């Protein structure tokens, strides 16, 4: 029997705020999406974007080779639960604390500036180091920042990066290679993704409308979320992880959502739960025409249309490589805020224009709670370009 795996603490920064309390307030108690118009790139008009406006901490001098926005966001999130992190390192020893983190951008923003400088001046700026843009740089920065020497690596599968990390990290605990793992992700706004998604015609000029008949693309966001993962069962358990591949196309999902269905099915099977036991599903729900169509079909086939669902992407934008971790954090916060009235559910924000050609999923409204006798079962989906899918299941113990 595998030991239980718990997510015992959280640090988070995104367009809703830079601590869990503020993020929770703007997600549930006083919902207020955090998108702001971001200056246009080249000739593109400004578009709503999940930019983090808070001042970010600097990177320590000893880690200047890793100085980039992505790592500053990571530091901001890590500092949010630094006493729990320090406690884990002190009680277990640095070589027993691992790091498994996801990103799709790493510090490519720093590389953009560096390449521009190189084209104009013929040299790189003195502040640039390749480790800022290297994908492995996020894990290495977190490892060095926390002064730990357990296994430390980055998983980089685009939009499912920081969901797959939960499976990787769990294996380290189950095999007793680590006593604690720092798991999560960080992604930062940069010209490459803003221009790239524009070039793919996947960016909406409005706040996004997941599941709407008017949906026309994503808002890009940035931010970071990290958990402390340890053996144990509380306060929130990582109950299951499922993964699959679409084997379909580089930049569109399987239109029937077969990979998405397998991903969710495997996560529930891993958690020992049947689909009717799902309390709430956090949709990948990017508001692209293709994703929402295939995801709603997959959810309908597996779970039916009764399970309460929402996409939270209008609140924060699509955090790409950090989406999995940030949306897991929303599920964690829902479970942590259980009251006598039940589990509070993150609302689905959109224009209300149902797409009648899709299965009619039950989309959560503002201020909804669900009474759940026993453990609540929350699932979160992350589906990536290239067809790399991942679903995770979080549960609480069932008491208030």
């Amino acid at each position, binding site marked *: 029997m595998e030991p239980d795996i718990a997510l015992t603490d959280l640090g988070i920064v995104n367009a809703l705020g830079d601590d869990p309390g503020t993020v929770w307030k703007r997600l549930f108690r006083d919902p207020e999406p955090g998108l702001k118009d971001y200056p246009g790139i*080249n000739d593109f008009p400004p578009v709503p974007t999940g930019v983090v406006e808070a001042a970010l901490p600097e990177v320590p001098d000893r880690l200047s080779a890793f100085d980039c926005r992505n790592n500053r966001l990571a530091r901001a999130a890590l500092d949010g639960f630094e006493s729990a992190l320090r406690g884990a390192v002190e009680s277990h020893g640095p*070589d027993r604390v691992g790091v498994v983190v996801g990103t*799709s951008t790493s510090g*490519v923003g720093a*590389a*953009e500036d560096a*390449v*521009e400088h*190189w*084209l104009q001046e013929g040299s*790189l700026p003195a502040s640039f*180091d*390749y*480790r800022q843009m*290297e*994908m*492995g*740089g996020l*894990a*290495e920065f977190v*490892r060095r920042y926390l002064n730990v*020497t*357990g*296994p*430390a*690596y*980055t*998983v*980089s*599968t*685009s939009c499912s990066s920081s969901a*797959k990390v939960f*499976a*990787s990290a*769990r*294996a*380290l605990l*189950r*095999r007793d290679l680590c006593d604690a793992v720092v798991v999560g992700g960080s992604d930062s706004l940069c*010209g*490459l993704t803003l*221009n*790239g998604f524009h*070039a793919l*015609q996947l960016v909406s000029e409005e706040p996004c409308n997941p599941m709407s008949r008017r949906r026309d693309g994503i808002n890009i966001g940035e931010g970071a979320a990290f958990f402390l993962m340890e053996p144990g069962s509380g306060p929130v358990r990582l109950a299951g992880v499922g*993964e*699959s*591949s*679409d*084997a*379909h*196309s*580089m*930049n569109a999902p399987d239109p029937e959502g077969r*990979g998405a269905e*397998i991903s969710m099915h495997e996560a529930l099977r891993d958690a020992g739960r049947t689909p009717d036991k799902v309390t709430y599903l956090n949709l990948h729900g990017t508001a692209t025409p293709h994703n929402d169509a295939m995801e709603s079909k997959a959810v309908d086939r597996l779970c039916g249309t009764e399970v309460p669902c929402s996409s939270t992407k209008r609140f924060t934008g699509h955090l790409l490589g950090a989406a999995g971790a940030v949306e897991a954090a929303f599920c964690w916060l829902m479970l942590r805020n259980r009251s006598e009235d039940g589990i509070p559910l993150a609302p689905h924000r959109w224009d209300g224009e149902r797409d009648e050609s899709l299965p009619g999923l039950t989309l959560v409204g503002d201020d909804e709670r669900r009474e759940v006798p026993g453990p609540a079962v929350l699932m979160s989906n992350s589906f990536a*370009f*290239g*067809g*790399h899918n991942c679903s995770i299941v979080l549960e609480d113990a069932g008491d208030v």
Partner: protein
Amino acid sequence: MFEFDVLGWSAWTPGLPGRDAFGDWVREDDADPDALQGEAEPDPQRVPSRMSRRCSGVTLMGLDAALTCCETSEVDGETVQVVWATQHGEINVTVDLLESLAREELISPTAFSNSVPNTPAAYFTILTDNRNPTRTVCAGAGSFAHGFLDAMGMLEDRPDQPVLLVQADERLSGPLEPFGSEGAMPFGAALILSRGSDPEFRFDTGAETSGGTHQKTTTLPPALRFLRWHLREDQTPLELRGHRRWSWSRA
């Protein structure tokens, strides 16, 4: 500590462009690492042309190794779990895009969607109709070791399903050239790892106590060192050092 078997392997380098060439080189005593350098380019015909014209050199090297590894083993590429390790990912595609951005040119949507490090893993699953879990692992000079570790984790979760572990990397060039390791070489390498009832090998990792600095790649990249160790049936354990110690041995 993990136990495992190796069900298949392959490699590709510009001087040893394929499994047979690499296998011949490995069998020589005192084989010269310079033989791995060369001018060959990976054969785009491994991949349907509508795909191959979009594939970078590092993707084609990795696909050659991955596909040949499956074809020369008894394991169907459709059935494996996949861990794709890479230090630099699609670095040349990315630098080209960054140059376009700097010149305020419109960037190519295809190049953008092929600039992510999971690009070759995605192509592999499309080519083999593989629906299984797939990960891409990046950990600097420790990318092979951590990819191997992730593969062991996948075998723990699904012991009946072998894992295809691939690494492909190209040299840093252009503005990034100063950051390249001395002697770094482009390569692709692939292994199929399994959990058997009587495994032949062990893999372990522990604290690095010698004040570890990152191992510079002045000889073979770790993935190719592993292949050489495995194919020459070297009885002494293979050890790599980074911020941790990694070792492979015969059970």
